[in-house]
């Protein structure tokens, strides 16, 4: 199998997945907010 044929195989395989409908952007926004909320507060620098 040539490089080009292999690339076409990958393309054929991936086509339906590339067409995946994304969940509403609000799902991502909620997830981003949860990430920010989980982040521990930054500690102040310690003097030597």
């Amino acid at each position: 199998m040539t490089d080009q044929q292999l690339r076409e195989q990958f393309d054929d395989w991936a086509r339906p997945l590339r067409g995946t409908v994304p969940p509403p952007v609000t799902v991502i926004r909620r997830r981003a907010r949860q990430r920010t909320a989980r982040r521990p507060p930054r500690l102040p620098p310690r003097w030597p």
Partner: protein
Amino acid sequence: MRHRGEFGDFYEANYGRIVAMTAALLGDRHEAEDVAQEAFARALTRWSRLAGYELPEAWVRRVALRIAIDSGRRRRRARATAARLEGQRQSPGPEPGDAIGFTALEAALLRLPLREREVLVLHYLADLPVEAIARDCGLPPGTVKTRLAASTWSRN
């Protein structure tokens, strides 16, 4: 607020590509969608900076790959532990019947170690040149070429 609409467009335009790439890496569509959503959530928390990048999708792709590889390792360890507990042989990867249709291509991909799979996926699916793959994976270009050449796995 200025970027709110821009992020939505960026997300909708790139989501499918990231899902396809991570699904090829993990062999599981649901896991791939979770990884893609996590990568976009991380992008959103940095969007004011990423929006200024020439190719913000490259950043999301790299983050999704790292998350997918960590997730793939966790799954492999979990499978190994389960196999030990059951006194069975360790399975080399996801089995037919996992989330997405199991084709010969996937079966061949999933027999490879994750790091080798990553190089093939970036080359054949993300269409990246050797130098870009080397940068994304933190590998010397020679190693990337060797791994691509070793992809005779699927040509036999």
